[in-house]
């Protein structure tokens, strides 16, 4: 038996200085938990040699709230609102992930209208999420204007959500057996207007940032993650697809209305930061395509097949289901003992938790500034890592 439990302090002993007067010494630097790059509270301990990064030790847990423990005391409907607070930038998709798992476990059939609305909202949210990422990447690289342009346009989608759902960020919209509210009569019209506006806007983003020579220099050939390594490191979502692995659950196991629509999976070739950048830019366009195809074909029907007070009982067993959020595969594992209304155990396979560790493989050998690029290109949401 060779179990050896270590502590962080053990890892952080500075290496000894050389004997020569000119020899250099490696040193540790804390990036975070409060650091402009952290976008939340993530601590990265860097072992540096001058500007060159030798090792990255991520220390998560600064927003660990114990959601999995809390879920053991809540019924399936109440779990939904906690999933908003995991990856708040793909709140609708997170809700849907849990709702889908519960529906599969409890054998609840939904109708076409519900699935269409869920798909539409998810894709709108995906666009919104990628827009925020684009702006934040610009801000991290020093182009602050990009951030504000992205937020200018993101605000339109936020308002659309607020009209329909009543919240801008934490939606709590999709629930087992349906969605919370029906869409408004002018929803379709507004979405069409939005799509018409977004087309040229995404091209403007390209002229503002993508074509910039400094940005290309910063992103190209930096942090190359090949497909094999990405799979071994458990990366999903745009990070994995940028490495050339076309794993998209929307295509692989179509759920919602994804089976009925035509869209392409954006796949990179090399797996560097630029590929991750452009994969996401392309995904925005593909999401717009999906919305375009669905917006005119929303079937009639009720938006909730269950009564609001209906008790959802999950039969005894272990259920696993997954969904493609804006950042990768969200897996939901529900374990029920068949007795109490709340599940016996809930586990979320969060995409960011698994994507985070790519930093440890990508960063060594690059400069401090490249850590910023790499972390931005992974598009991490810290509360989703910590849960």
């Amino acid at each position, binding site marked *: 038996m060779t*179990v050896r439990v270590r502590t962080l302090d053990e890892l952080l002993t500075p290496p000894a200085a050389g004997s020569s007067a000119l020899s250099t010494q490696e040193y540790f630097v804390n990036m975070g938990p409060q650091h402009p790059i952290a976008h939340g509270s993530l601590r990265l301990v860097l072992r540096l040699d001058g500007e060159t990064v030798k090792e990255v030790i991520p220390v998560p847990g600064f927003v660990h709230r*114990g959601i999995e*423990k809390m879920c053991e005391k809540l019924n399936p409907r109440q779990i939904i609102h906690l999933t908003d607070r995991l990856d708040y930038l793909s709140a609708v998709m997170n809700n849907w992930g849990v709702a889908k798992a519960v529906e599969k476990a409890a054998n609840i059939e939904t109708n076409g209208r519900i699935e269409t609305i869920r798909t539409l909202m998810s894709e709108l949210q995906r666009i919104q999420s990628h827009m925020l990422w684009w702006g934040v990447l610009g801000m991290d690289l020093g182009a602050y204007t990009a951030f504000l342009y992205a937020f200018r346009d993101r605000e339109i989608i936020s308002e659309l959500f607020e009209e329909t759902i009543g919240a801008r960020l934490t939606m709590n919209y999709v629930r087992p057996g349906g969605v919370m509210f029906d869409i408004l009569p002018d929803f379709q019209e507004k979405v069409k207007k939005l799509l018409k506006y977004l087309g040229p806007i995404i091209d403007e983003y390209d002229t503002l940032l993508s074509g910039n020579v400094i940005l290309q220099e910063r992103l190209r050939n930096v942090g190359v993650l090949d497909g094999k390594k990405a799979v071994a*490191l*458990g990366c999903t979502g745009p990070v994995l697809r940028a490495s050339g692995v076309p794993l998209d659950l929307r295509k692989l196991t179509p759920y919602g209305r994804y089976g009925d629509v035509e869209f392409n999976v954006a796949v990179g070739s090399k797996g560097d930061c630029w590929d991750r950048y452009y994969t996401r830019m392309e995904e925005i366009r593909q999401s717009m395509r999906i919305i375009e195809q669905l917006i005119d074909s929303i079937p009639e029907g009720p938006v909730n097949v269950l009564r609001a007070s209906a008790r959802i009982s999950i039969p005894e067993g*272990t259920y696993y289901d997954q969904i493609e959020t804006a950042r990768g595969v969200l*897996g939901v594992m529900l*374990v029920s003992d068949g007795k109490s209304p709340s599940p016996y*155990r809930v586990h979320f396979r969060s995409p960011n938790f698994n994507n985070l560790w790519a930093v440890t493989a990508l960063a060594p050998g690059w400069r401090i500034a490249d850590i910023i690029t790499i972390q931005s290109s992974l598009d991490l949401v810290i509360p989703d890592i910590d849960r």
Partner: protein
Amino acid sequence: MDAQALLQAITGVNPAAQERPNTNVPAVQVPVAGLHAFLQVLRDDPRFSFDFLLDHTAIDWMADGKFELVYQLFSTLHGHTLMVGVLIEREQPLAPTVSDLWPIAEWQEREVYDLFGIPYDDHPDLRRLFLEDDWTGYPLRKDYQDKNMLQRPQ
């Protein structure tokens, strides 16, 4: 390979594997002895080629005195998934590490160690992940007590 054929092929490889009941995905239950070798076969055999460890976590079956380790495997080649459940003793738990098969397991196992207190044999870097190093107790165990944990008034 559909679920039935997959399960049959797996029983062919490891006779000790049983089908895990009450799941919505193909699932097997194997004993902890020989787990590492079994998972290695699942990864390397071209019929299975489970090159992707989607998820690894644990379930605390306190009434039975067992922990159950759950591995969610996925194959990017064939596109099929498999859930592997392993029961280990709740008293003095110990599990073999699979971080040499799938590097991501290193951190997923650290999470399980942090929240369940299941140590892993030969793990390269077994540390607390989310909680501080000096935290006492393992919060996802069913018998965890904490005075900071407010109970919802009924």
